[in-house]
């Protein structure tokens, strides 16, 4: 038995204009989870330092306060020198997030500037900018950062932000340049040029809005990298260790043998915080990818029509069998649909 499915019956696409909430609902699940997780951490970073129960640097001289496991007085226990881990964590999350977002913003702006400039200037300038970007992509970044910071007299947060921003634009510049080249010769750009719009206006109002998702993905990636690099550099001990970030917490935990002393409450919270912030960023990035390329979505989250999983990229179902293994006609039609290819050897 076959039946005809009305095409407009697709339940996920609302007919009315998407409200703010509707837009949120249509985000891929990954992105939602990532945004919520990151939001929690941003909240902690913004208001957390106001609620620290102790001064994170205060060293309790009493021996009984040293290396205590989590308790009601110290939610996450204390360090070797009696400092409160929970207070350090609240302050550290702010500093680490702050660094990530500032580096992400600066590096993304640089990437857009270089990428669009290279694509528009063309010729020798394009070659030089592209070559520079590729060279800095291939030189391993962390050893270079270590040498740079190791010899820098000031190694505070500002120096780290400057160095990371300067070294992090090439990846984005490369991608944005390629995309700009692809868009540049489209008809709507030609139309804009014909109407006499200036190059800068075209760049600002035609080119850049058309690669927002690319720029956003680049921003998220840069934040992720900056946080990872800053934590690693602090852990190695090449940057100023007097302020509390997640990396410096891990450095002190490692250098004062938290591991050998079995003080898991000392090194697990900062490491887990870095990992969770990183996960939220990866989730958001996957979500951005899935928005641009719906095929990448986890097929399990796709809607079902007449018992069959349908994805946005599948051909419109004209004939479908209610019985799982189909009638000859339906089987014939089905054999030409792309979904058969993707599901062909499921179980």
């Amino acid at each position, binding site marked *: 038995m076959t039946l005809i499915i009305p095409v407009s019956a697709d339940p996920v696409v609302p007919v009315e204009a998407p409200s703010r909430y509707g837009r949120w609902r249509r985000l891929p699940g990954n992105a939602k989870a990532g945004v919520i997780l990151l939001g929690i951490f941003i909240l902690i970073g913004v208001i957390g330092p106001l609620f620290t129960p102790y001064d994170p640097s205060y060293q309790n001289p009493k021996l009984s306060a040293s290396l205590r496991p989590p308790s009601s007085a110290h939610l996450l226990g204390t360090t070797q020198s009696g400092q409160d881990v929970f207070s350090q964590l609240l302050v550290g999350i702010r500093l680490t997030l702050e660094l990530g977002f500032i580096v992400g913003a600066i590096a993304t702006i640089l990437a857009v500037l270089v990428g669009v400039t290279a694509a528009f200037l063309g010729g020798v300038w394009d070659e030089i900018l592209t070559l520079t970007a590729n060279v800095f992509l291939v030189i391993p970044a962390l050893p270079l950062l270590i040498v740079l910071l190791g010899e820098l007299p000031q190694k505070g947060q500002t120096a780290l932000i400057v160095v990371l921003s300067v070294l992090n634009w090439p990846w984005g510049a490369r991608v944005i340049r390629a995309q700009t080249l692809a868009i540049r010769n489209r008809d709507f750009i030609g139309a804009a040029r014909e109407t006499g719009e200036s190059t800068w206006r075209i760049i600002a109002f035609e080119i850049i809005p058309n690669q927002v998702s690319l720029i956003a993905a680049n921003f998220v990636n840069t934040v992720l990298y900056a946080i990872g690099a800053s934590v690693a550099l602090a852990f190695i001990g090449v940057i100023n260790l007097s302020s509390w970030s997640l990396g410096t917490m891990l450095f002190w935990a490692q250098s004062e043998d938290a591991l050998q002393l079995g003080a898991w409450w000392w090194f697990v919270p900062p490491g887990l915080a870095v990992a969770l912030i990183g996960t939220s960023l990866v989730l958001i990035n996957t979500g951005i990818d899935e928005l641009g390329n719906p095929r990448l979505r986890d097929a399990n989250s796709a809607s079902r029509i007449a018992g069959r*999983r349908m994805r946005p990229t599948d051909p419109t179902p004209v004939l479908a069998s209610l019985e799982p293994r189909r009638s000859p006609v339906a089987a014939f039609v089905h054999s030409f649909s792309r979904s058969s290819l993707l599901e062909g050897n499921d179980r």
Partner: protein
Amino acid sequence: MAFILRRLGFYVVAAWVAMTLDFLIPRLMPGNAVADIVSKFPSLQPAAYKALEAMLGVGHPGSLWHQYVSYLYDVFHFNFGTDVTEYPASVSSLIGSTIPWTLTLVGTATVIAFLLGTALGILAGWRNGGWLDRLLPGLMFLQAIPYFFFALILIEVFAVRLHVFPIGQGFSSGVVPGWNMSFIGSAISHSLLPAATIVITSVAGWMLQMRNVMITTIGEDYVLAGQAKGLTDRRVIYTYAARNALLPQLQGFGLALGFVVSGAIVMEIVFSYPGIGLLLVNAVTSDDYPLMQAIFLVITFAVLLANVIVDIVIVFMDPRTRVREVPA
């Protein structure tokens, strides 16, 4: 051939940029790295001055250009002079003794992670929606976790609590390095946890990337054509879809090597593994600038060399690189 030559030209430029950066960094730094180092080691041996001259330009009479030329000459001969902190040893011999450790461990683990991740990615991409997709959130967590933190957790669980693996170092303290069974066995058991760290934290990235490219490739018409011809799934997967999906993956491999090496450096500290990363960090903590700079160069050269190898593999895999005109 034209492709390889172009790429080689690019790597030469990259190597030159790295060498020039290495030359300029200590000379352009605000403050005086050289004064620092001389005041820190008052009993500096005359021979150690050679290293300082080569890398930092201490007390060198010549102009900047002259220094640059002699610096390049020294680098080309792998003559980095005598080390400042470990006086009689030369910088090159210090580096030389650590390279085999890092190369064996990081090289093997990276190749394993790449192959495993790619294979899993092929499966996950082909059976989109299968059980492998349910692991995706977990994989993203693994991808986001810092290498060294994961290493700490592994040590805590397997070395401190379960006593299955040794806690660190490259080999047990009683064993003398040499080509005998007890040393090799000891080295292997000490390398398992560090290798596991690299494999587990980096496999997710390869897998996710391969899955995504694979899914996009499967949507191509030639894959559909392959199926329509009635080819077996196995043949469609491997010779139609995966072979093409592998090219972006390989290109990514070259670029990702820098990240892998960076992660491995920090990982070595956690395990006190006697590799080049640990040497670099020890050089940083003792302000041994010449050693730091030499290590940076050696690591960069190694990454560039690995990239050359990847490019040669790409030439074998991708016929488009073998024609004269290579699209950019």
